[in-house]
């Protein structure tokens, strides 16, 4: 049975999620480059947007795996996908408002699992895969990336000991343009595919395409554009936390952190782990703080992030389940419309709330004060 109308809403919602995925994660690649001045803020987000766009077209090997490996696709309906996306968007927007770099991938996975649980019960979840492909990598990946960044940072400072400080900073700022671009490229490849996978799943569930089909071209192109546009708009709140909140970063550290991130993301993707670029980037940045002698890590901020990470899967899941309940209780097209309006209202509300303490390209690098994610006084925005 085909529900074209609901399908259209699901696709729009999925692309909206992809968009939030983009701006939530700009900081993973660009936060340190912006903080060290390697790239002017607006150039950085533009470069990252382009790299995400290119990355989204580079490889399609993991597109179908996100949902099909974690839930029994036979139990998935359009409503389930829709509600899952609502859960993902909710968590992405909330954490963005608070300036917390949490995982967009976990938000999506949590949402889909929550709505599937509500719809079909526990047997529809592939728990083993959830633990071995999502939860354990989420614990290991920031540790590994952090360790690589510690070693990289130590080596980089040791080797360039004789080079004058300003010269060194200048050289590594150039290096950062390359390393940050790599992270953006890897991000585009990884994360754009996750939404492609979800839309493809919706198309399969709806009977629009055959179950063994890969993502149609229009799905690939629209997902690539959505994530890259989101990246370009830049999640300045998250960029600020990553670039200024964890450590006071210098360009050699930023360079080492970004190199560690790209290596960890690309390697894990190679082994089929659906890991979060956010976790990796955070681990790397903290690592680069530990690796430099005399540098200080703000463990308070790191602790807040870690708490958000732990909460991401269950919270997005809860909202996903709730969204499913609402849509299912009302039923049919009306249910989908109500859910769509709720998501839209949430987006507008959070956007308005964010305007009260705006963080943008002008104040993103202001000095960090403990417990204060938005700098005051906030400059007026046009």
């Amino acid at each position, binding site marked *: 049975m085909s529900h074209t109308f609901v399908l259209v809403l699901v696709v729009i919602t999925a692309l909206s999620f992809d968009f939030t995925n983009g701006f939530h994660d700009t900081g993973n690649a660009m936060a340190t480059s912006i903080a060290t001045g390697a790239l002017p803020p607006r150039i950085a987000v533009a470069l990252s947007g382009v790299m995400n766009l290119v990355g989204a077209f580079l490889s399609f*090997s993991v597109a179908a795996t996100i949902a099909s490996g974690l839930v029994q696709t036979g139990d998935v309906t359009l409503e389930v996908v829709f509600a899952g996306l609502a859960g993902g968007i909710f968590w992405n927007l909330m954490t963005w408002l608070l300036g917390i770099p949490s995982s967009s991938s976990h938000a999506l996975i949590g949402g889909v699992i929550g709505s599937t649980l509500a719809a079909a019960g526990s047997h529809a979840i592939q728990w*083993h895969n959830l633990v071995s492909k999502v939860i354990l990598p989420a614990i290991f990946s920031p540790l590994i990336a952090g360790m690589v960044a510690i070693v990289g940072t130590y080596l980089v400072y040791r*080797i360039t000991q*004789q080079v004058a400080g*300003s010269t060194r900073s200048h050289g590594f700022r150039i290096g950062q343009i390359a390393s940050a671009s790599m992270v953006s490229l890897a991000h585009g490849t990884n994360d754009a595919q996750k939404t492609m996978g979800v839309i493809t799943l919706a198309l399969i569930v709806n009977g629009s395409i055959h179950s063994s089909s890969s993502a149609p071209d229009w799905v690939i192109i629209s997902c690539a554009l959505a994530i890259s546009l989101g990246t370009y708009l830049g999640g300045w709140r998250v960029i600020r936390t990553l670039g200024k909140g964890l450590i006071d970063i210098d360009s050699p550290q930023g360079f080492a952190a970004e190199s560690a991130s790209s290596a960890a993301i690309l390697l894990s993707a190679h*082994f089929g782990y659906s890991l979060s670029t956010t976790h990796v980037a955070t681990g790397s940045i903290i690592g680069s703080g530990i690796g430099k002698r005399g540098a200080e890590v703000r463990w308070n901020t790191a602790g807040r992030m870690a708490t958000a990470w732990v909460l991401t899967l269950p919270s997005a899941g809860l909202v996903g389940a709730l969204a499913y309940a609402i849509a299912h209780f009302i039923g049919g097209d009306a249910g989908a419309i109500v859910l769509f309006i709720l998501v839209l209202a949430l987006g507008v509300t959070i956007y308005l709330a964010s305007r009260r303490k705006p963080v943008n390209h002008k104040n993103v690098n202001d000095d960090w004060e403990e417990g204060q994610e938005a700098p005051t006084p906030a400059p007026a925005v046009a």
Partner: protein
Amino acid sequence: MSWINLNALWKIVVVGLLAGAGLPAVFAIGMWALNLGRKPATVSATTGSADVPGKEESILGGSSTGLVIGAVCFLIFLAGIAFGIYYIVSGA
């Protein structure tokens, strides 16, 4: 089915260290080499690195050996990036 794929884990750690820490180190060697030949400046006691007040940000030190070593290092670094992109395209 096991919970942790140890085979993948150690490969990620080892290759991750080589690429994620090794390549930045190569880049750093390149920069050190380019900077060779510059007159030793007053070494700051606190940071341990040489700071020249007023002298701004030129990386080239003037040694031709250094230039060659530097060029080789940066080529290795760029080759690493190229391999990374190839790695993505070839279907991770």
